[in-house]
């Protein structure tokens, strides 16, 4: 990796971390709704996203905004999403990524299908399925890995093992010592990587993506990381994890690490770091502004994307709906 690439990573991580923290605060101020912070997992997400080709697919869960952002989804989207705006699902046309999805592990099968479609159409695209440690318990996770292995689909499963599924530690989720070893059940390659080390994540995914793209079959990556914050703004982790453990595990977080590396290698100075912080602040301010200035959604739009064409019954329902809503969007009554 070039020095510039590393510095760029740093800029991304810092910006994304700040965005995440800002989102948390916005929720606390009542300006956005429930929000699932990704702090601590930026390296897994950005490292993976950066290692892909532009046309590759990403299938994300609710916590994977850092990956989407790196791919080009505006920074305002996670905020819009927590503001309950429908457009947060409208991934810009130029980006091959599915909107975030909350049903645990369901997106892993979509990734298999997308990879399969690429295979059938000789598109050379790889699909990445992000999911969490908790997701490995779901039937869909298993069905994904099995199907992908049988058809040798070009999928990379990236499990972010952040140690927790809400209040459930990994040890209650599985009896196996690692997630990577689950690859053995499917005779595919399984790798455990330090998910807090963006260079390791990037290089692992880079290498595996090439291999997968060349028809080497699916791979399973366990990126070991730590969820620095709560599960969501509605969660209180002090109920179930000790401050002690928390302190210990937080130390490995990816930004401090990359910063130390950059400093030790003489690549960035304190001044540079301050500039990055400054720049991040600007970008995050802009994102907040963009989200808050984003046009309100027309309530009636709820009918617009159920089917390609509005069916007769839905037309009637929309007419009835209109009678309950004022033109400006306020509720009648």
């Amino acid at each position, binding site marked *: 990796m070039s020095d510039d690439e590393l510095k760029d990573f740093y800029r991304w991580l810092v910006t994304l971390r700040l965005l995440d923290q800002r989102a948390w605060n916005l929720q606390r101020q009542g300006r956005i709704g429930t929000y699932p912070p990704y702090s601590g997992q930026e390296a897994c997400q950005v490292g993976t996203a950066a290692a892909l080709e532009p046309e590759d697919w990403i299938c994300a869960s609710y916590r994977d905004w850092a990956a989407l952002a790196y791919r080009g989804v505006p920074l305002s989207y996670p905020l819009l999403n927590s503001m309950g705006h429908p457009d947060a699902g409208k991934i810009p046309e130029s980006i091959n990524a599915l909107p975030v999805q909350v049903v645990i592990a369901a997106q892993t099968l979509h990734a298999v299908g997308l990879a399969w479609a690429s295979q059938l159409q000789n598109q050379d695209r790889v699909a990445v399925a992000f999911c969490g440690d908790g997701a490995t318990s779901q039937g869909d996770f298993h069905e994904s890995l099995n199907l992908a292995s049988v058809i040798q689909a070009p999928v990379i499963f990236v499990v972010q093992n952040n140690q927790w599924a809400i209040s459930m530690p990994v040890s209650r989720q599985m009896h196996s010592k690692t997630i990577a070893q689950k690859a053995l059940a499917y005779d595919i390659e399984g790798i455990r990587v330090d998910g807090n080390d963006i260079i390791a994540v990037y290089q692992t995914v880079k290498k595996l993506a090439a291999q997968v793209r060349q028809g080497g079959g699916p791979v399973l990556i366990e990126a070991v990381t730590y969820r620095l914050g709560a599960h969501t703004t509605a969660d209180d982790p002090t109920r179930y994890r000790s401050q002690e453990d928390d302190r210990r595990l937080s130390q490995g977080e990816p930004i401090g690490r990359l910063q130390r590396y950059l400093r030790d290698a003489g690549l960035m100075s304190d001044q540079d770091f301050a500039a990055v912080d400054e720049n991040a602040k600007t970008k995050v301010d802009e994102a907040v502004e963009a989200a808050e200035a984003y046009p309100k959604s027309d309530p009636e739009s709820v009918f617009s994307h159920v089917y390609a064409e509005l069916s*007769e019954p839905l037309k009637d329902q929309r007419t009835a709906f209109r009678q309950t809503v004022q033109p400006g969007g306020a509720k009648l009554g």
Partner: protein
Amino acid sequence: MAKLTMIQAINQALGIAMERDERVMVLGEDVGKNGGVFRATEGLWERFGDHRVVDTPLAESAIIGSSVGLAIGGMRPVAEIQFFGFIFEAMDQIGTQASRIRFRSQGRYHVPLVIRAPFGGGVRTPEIHSDSIEAFFAHMPGLKVVIPATPYQAKGLLLSAIQDPDPVLFLEPMRLYRAGREEVPDDWYELDLGKARITRPGDAVTLIAWGPMVPVAEQAADRAAVDHISVEVIDLATLNPLDTATIITSVEKTGRAVVVHEAARSGGFGAEVSAQIQEHAFLSLEAPVIRVTGYDTPFPVPSIEDFWLPDADRLYQAIQAAIRY
């Protein structure tokens, strides 16, 4: 034009859809070499190869979930669920995924997926193989539900379903697969989704059915005709979107309606039809809408199913009851 059974018509539809559009592919359990347990996909594997006719692992959620990805990725998957009762395994991928991708992505993505499944009773299957649970799917916004009742209908509706940009559940009445033959054009033709079909005109009672109950309804209508009761039989063909207009026009004329389905009574789709009739044709109704349905029990074992399933007798009695009310 040849006289085909329904299973042949379906097989032919799949064949010409695959010929015409490279993106169309068939996937499911035993659909390849074996040609499907009912032979719906017979010969397709030989013609189109194993990239387009794919035997999947035994995992319904994987079949539908990967189809969602295939569809978004530019293919036009036609997925087979071997028996409708096994669709329970794929409920999440249908109910929260396939049917909501367009909505979730605000139109950026859509899922042109057809899910085919044989369904219904009368063929002496083991447990779970005969269930009629179409009502679940008619209650899933974003999904269409189509049920043919004849070979001609089956082919035309299936071709439309494959052309449709949104996910369509296509339910095939097992007991009609080989129950009779009908002239079916050799070529491509489409029948509009969302349109009901009047299979017998009449003016005294409207009898509403779909899938396996359509011939039973016609039988009952024939019997009523002997008694000079003129029954109009409507085959809904599509449950969602429902062709309310055809139903209401008929009931406004007849003033009486009977709706029949194999599914358990409570919460069956007959309730929706009944509710709509009384909503839209209240003043025309001379008698309550009568439902003739399966009972609120699991689908029975083969030795009992003939007693359990709605038949022309029960329908005929309902017609009489509607008339005499």
